[in-house]
């Protein structure tokens, strides 16, 4: 027999001995029946508290017998003469049993409270472990393990599902043996998000899903646990929250990095546009000063005009690139507004004075042509690009035409065309003398135009013009027609 096995025997022997000692002591001192009754009662209560209800019950019967035998007349018999003594004896027995029971109940309650306190302390410790320090999942498993041990589980583990798939199990922490059946149980618990409880050699095995709302993100296993299911479920919930938090921290770090990259891009764009625009402004102002001085020297004037033209082309290219970058980076969105095509044509003329001075450019808007619903600055970039290209491929003196009308097929669109009498697009593709930016679809300028048109909800196209030359088309959404309700 083990030391533990001896314990009840010793307890009972000690209890009997203490009743005997009280009896002998009482007899020696010559205590009266009332006093010894109280002493017996106190001893029986103490023994009940110490040894439990069964021991207490047995000791109350033994004490009653001793009380009767040694202290109630006639002494040394179990007979009782006076009826009052019967009552005293019965009262003693009932009191000792009832109070004994109460004492035991109180003690059990205290023990349960103590257990709950320990559980809560453990859960608190776990929550602190989980939420104050961890930034990775490994310490999460260790913290859960510590909590399970404190709650009396002999073994256990924490399994997380990768991407919510219960068959892709990542074992974060595990103690004790782990067979294939464990993996299957874990997968089943994860799929159904329902806890499973199985009896085992050491107690009960709990498989608790880590669920917060939707699907299980993993399973917490507690083997041979003697603690309450509620406490284990609390642990599982805490771990589930911690896992979610982990995921969230990871995602927000990623988002933060993206935001930072975006902010960097924005400030870079801002800096570039400022740092390029300021010297360009200075250059164009000085060029105009030079133009004035060069008015008398035609060779010089031509050169200076060339510089002015190149400067403004450079500026437009930079603006186009920046606009494209801003649109793609999402730092600006197109701000469409109803825009009359005539306004766009006028703005083109202001942007390309040299083209309009050097050749005849006619602009025409059909009477029934609706306004375009477009970001004016984007549409302008596209048209300026078209006209510049048309000007460069057209022989000197050949006119250009700007034409706006309702789209012939789609009534909710506006078609704006730039027509030239250049070599047309088939010829351009065969020409080796032209730079790539003149070749439709391949040059930087047209690439920018295509991207800006697309951002405006429109499209561009290029085709040969009947009778020679090319037609560059920009199709844009039409602004909804609203009619004024006011009489003349």
């Amino acid at each position, binding site marked *: 027999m083990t030391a533990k096995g001896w314990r009840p025997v010793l307890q009972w022997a000690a209890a009997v001995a203490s009743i005997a000692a009280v009896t002998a002591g009482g007899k020696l001192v010559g205590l009266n029946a009332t006093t010894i009754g109280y002493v017996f009662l106190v001893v029986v209560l103490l023994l009940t508290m110490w040894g439990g209800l069964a021991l207490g019950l047995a000791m109350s019967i033994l004490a009653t017998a001793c009380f009767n035998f040694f202290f109630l007349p006639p002494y040394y018999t179990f007979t009782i003469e006076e009826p009052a003594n019967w009552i005293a004896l019965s009262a003693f027995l009932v009191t000792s049993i009832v109070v004994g029971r109460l004492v035991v109940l109180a003690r059990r309650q205290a023990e349960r409270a103590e257990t709950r306190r320990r559980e809560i302390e453990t859960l608190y410790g776990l929550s602190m472990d989980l939420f104050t320090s961890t930034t990775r999942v490994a310490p999460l498993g260790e913290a859960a393990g510590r909590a399970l041990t404190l709650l009396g589980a002999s073994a256990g583990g924490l399994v997380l599902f990768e991407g919510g798939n219960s068959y892709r199990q990542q074992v974060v922490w595990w103690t004790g043996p782990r067979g294939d059946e464990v993996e299957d149980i874990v997968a089943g618990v994860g799929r159904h998000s329902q806890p499973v409880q199985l009896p085992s050699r050491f107690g009960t095995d709990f498989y608790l899903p880590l669920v917060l709302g939707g699907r299980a993100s993993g399973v917490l296993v507690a083997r041979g646990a003697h603690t309450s299911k509620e406490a284990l479920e609390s642990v599982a919930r805490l771990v589930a929250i911690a896992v979610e938090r982990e995921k969230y921290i990871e995602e927000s770090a990623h988002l933060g990095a993206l935001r930072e990259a975006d902010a960097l891009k924005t400030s870079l764009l801002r800096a570039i*546009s*400022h740092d390029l*625009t*300021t*010297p*360009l*402004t*200075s*250059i*164009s*102002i*000085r060029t*105009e*000063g030079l133009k*004035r001085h060069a008015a008398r020297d035609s060779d010089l004037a031509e050169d200076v005009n060339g510089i002015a033209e190149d*400067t*403004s082309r450079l*500026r437009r290219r930079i603006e186009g690139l920046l606009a494209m970058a801003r649109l793609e980076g999402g730092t600006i969105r197109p*701000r469409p*507004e*109803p*825009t*009359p*095509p*005539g*306004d766009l*044509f*006028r703005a083109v003329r*202001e942007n390309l004075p040299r083209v309009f001075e050097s050749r005849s450019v006619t*602009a*025409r*808007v059909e*009477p029934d042509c609706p*306004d375009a619903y477009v*970001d*004016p*600055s984007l549409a302008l970039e596209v048209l300026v690009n078209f006209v510049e290209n048309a000007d460069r491929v057209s022989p000197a003196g050949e006119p250009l035409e*700007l034409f*706006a009308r309702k789209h012939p097929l789609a009534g909710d669109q506006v078609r704006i065309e730039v027509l030239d009498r250049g070599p047309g697009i088939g010829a351009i593709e065969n020409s080796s003398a032209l730079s790539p930016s003149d070749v439709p679809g391949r040059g930087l300028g047209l690439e920018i135009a295509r991207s800006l048109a697309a951002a405006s909800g429109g499209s561009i196209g290029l085709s040969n013009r009947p009778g020679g030359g090319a037609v560059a088309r920009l199709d844009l959404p039409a602004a909804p027609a*609203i*009619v*004024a309700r*006011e*009489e*003349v």
Partner: protein
Amino acid sequence: MVDDDPGIRESLSKELRSAGYETIAASDGREGFALTKARSPDLVLTDLAMPVSDGYELISAIRASLTTPIIVLSVRSGDPDIVRALDLGADDYVTKPFSVTELLARVRSQLRRSAKLLSTVLAFEGLTIDLDRRHVVQKGREVRLTPTEFALLELLATNAGRPVLLDQIIARVWHGAPATTGDTVRVHMSALRRKLEPDSANPRYIVNEPWVGYRFIAEPLT
């Protein structure tokens, strides 16, 4: 002229001087305001983004006590910055890089406006507007306008050469009526333009100022 970039200050001063104007240059808003107070120029040209004290600060400071015309030199067209500057009291803007010719035209227009006495008959090339008789003649033919259209035309023409904000139009023509939106303004404006413009492909009088409002572009006859 207020700009933090010495290159622009120097080149622009030179151009303005050769156009016959006298210039004073400052490198930030505070210095600009001090010089405006001390020398009372006829016109202020200012950049918006400047270290220490920016263009907005300068515009607010000037508008608190002076009516000196202000033209803003802005980096990007269609920027909310421009609307903000106009709201604060700037009279016009040009976007960098601008042409000197364009800037000089704006400067002339502002100087003329501030010097001009309020006349009741506004005359432009091919267009006469009699404000008292509410009579509009375009190339010899009378243009019949609705009261709203006339109010629009009056507001724009008395501010000829200067951008008028959508909000200002709503406040002045519709007296800030709550349901008035940019769309309402656009509808009446396009009706007005249909009646006024001889060729819609080449507007001569009124143009959209993207995201800002409208501008009356014809030069007043003197």
